């Protein structure tokens, strides 16, 4: 009978929320691929895809259909189980991040207050770190199972890059945690929303810069796209992949981008906070809706920033990548951490 005591409504509500968020992320990722091509085109003085549908808006569906219809090739000498597991793992890890992101405050629905966050766990950031690290396995396993020199090289590069930059990523976040005193993303956002408090970017400009650069590296975006360097590694770890398995890899990169943009918005840019507006003066549902739009605008801005950087600068050489990571990012992050700690102590008057 203990099952009956379970709050089934909560269960249903979370299930619906998960479904909405997963499908919305997939849909947004679909259009992020389109946006990538459009941004690239506009930055290079060309019109970009404009044939499929009005303004080329059906292009992502054409791309998706193409990927699904393609022949699925599994190399003879590959490890079949791992070969199939790779893209699935990459996709799962990318989608799992969305569990702790607070998409907005809460909505009132038939007298029920629904939190617009799948799980407000008090170790939210640690969870994100864990999941992001799992994402490396997608690349590693894919590259390893392909049984191809270039793929393996790319996978090794990807793994070592992720490890190097995760250090600086973590160190830059410690400073944010010192400020907010909590690992829960929700409370970090609420703290920034308090009247009199500014967004964390004001207190942590250097921390944000380090975090942003490390996020680029974590998402394998240019200038850190060494794992999928087309012109030196033949597309890197997904070289042997075809059809929707390749699509999963490409897709997971875009989902990763969306999720890390959302995390970045929550940590440094007030999440669903609307600047210069007191949310408590609005009705709950209106505030939630506007808050979601604010978060969405921030996410779109970061995605544009990612693309803007991609179509501006070339890829780092491998030694430059490692030098930047170990000799510049980590010392800077440590300095930032110490400075923040000292300032907090000085302000507290110790």
């Amino acid at each position: 009978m203990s099952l009956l005591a379970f709050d089934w409504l909560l269960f249903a509500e979370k299930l619906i929320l998960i479904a909405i968020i997963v499908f919305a992320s997939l849909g947004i990722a679909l259009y992020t691929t389109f946006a990538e091509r459009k941004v690239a085109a506009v930055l290079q003085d060309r019109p970009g895809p404009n044939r499929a549908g009005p303004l080329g808006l059906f292009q992502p569906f054409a791309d998706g259909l193409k990927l699904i219809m393609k022949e699925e090739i599994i190399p003879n000498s590959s490890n079949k189980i791992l070969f199939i597991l790779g893209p699935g793992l990459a996709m799962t890890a990318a989608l799992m991040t969305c569990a702790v992101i607070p998409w907005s405050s809460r909505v009132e629905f038939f007298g029920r207050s629904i939190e617009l966050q799948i799980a407000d766990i008090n170790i939210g950031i640690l969870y994100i770190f864990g999941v992001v690290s799992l994402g490396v396995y997608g690349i590693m396993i894919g590259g390893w199972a392909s049984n191809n020199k270039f793929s393996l090289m790319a996978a090794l590069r990807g793994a070592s890059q992720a490890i190097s930059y995760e250090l600086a990523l973590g160190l830059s976040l410690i400073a944010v945690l010192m400020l907010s005193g909590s690992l829960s993303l929700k409370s970090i956002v609420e703290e920034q929303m308090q009247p009199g408090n500014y967004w964390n970017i004001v207190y942590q400009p250097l921390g944000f810069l380090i975090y942003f650069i490390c996020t680029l590296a974590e998402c394998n975006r240019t200038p850190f796209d060494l794992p999928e360097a087309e012109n030196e590694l033949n597309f890197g770890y997904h070289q042997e992949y075809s059809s929707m398995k390749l699509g999963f890899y490409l897709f997971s990169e875009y989902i990763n981008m969306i999720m890390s943009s959302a995390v970045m918005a929550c940590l440094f840019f007030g999440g669903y906070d609307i600047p210069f507006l007191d949310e408590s003066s609005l009705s709950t549902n209106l505030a939630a809706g506007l808050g979601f739009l604010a978060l969405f605008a921030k996410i779109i801005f970061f995605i544009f920033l990612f693309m803007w950087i991609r179509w501006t600068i070339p890829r780092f050489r491998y030694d430059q990548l490692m030098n930047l990571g170990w000799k510049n990012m980590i010392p800077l992050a440590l300095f930032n951490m110490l400075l923040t700690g000292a300032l907090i102590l000085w302000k507290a008057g110790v």
Partner: protein
Amino acid sequence: MQALTNRGKAVNRAPMTWAERLYLPSIFKGMAITFSHIFKKQPTIRYPEQTRPFSPVFRGLHVLNRDEEGRERCTACGLCAVACPAEAITMEAAERQNGEEHLYREEKYAAKYEINMLRCIFCGLCEEACPKDAIYLSETFAPANYARKGFIYGKEELLIPNPVTEKELLATAQGH
């Protein structure tokens, strides 16, 4: 070594400073440049809808001319085929029968006239060789095709619309 021109530039090979090794100032400079390109005019011509204007002396696909009464000018003399350096033109002559005076201008005409557009080099020598003003190069080029056969243009493709019976068609073909 002695410099051959005065355009050479000395390369700064000094090791990068710490600030330079952060790459950030140069990255921001580069991003400003790409951002400014958002507002630049696109030179793109959206091809099937828009076309680039050709010069009036452009040598494109051939047309076989008719006179003002709509009669074919070609007499199948074969001078164009002789002049053709690519040997792209073949023709078969035929004699005009009684009652065909409204179709063909002279007593002899081309029963078959074919130009292989894959062989043709669009030099325009056929146009210059023609004593009857029967062949001209127009301002369009051969569209893509799936088979080689499709590039062998016969009389149906080459003859211009009849100016007496197909006035509208001729007007569209001339781009009016």
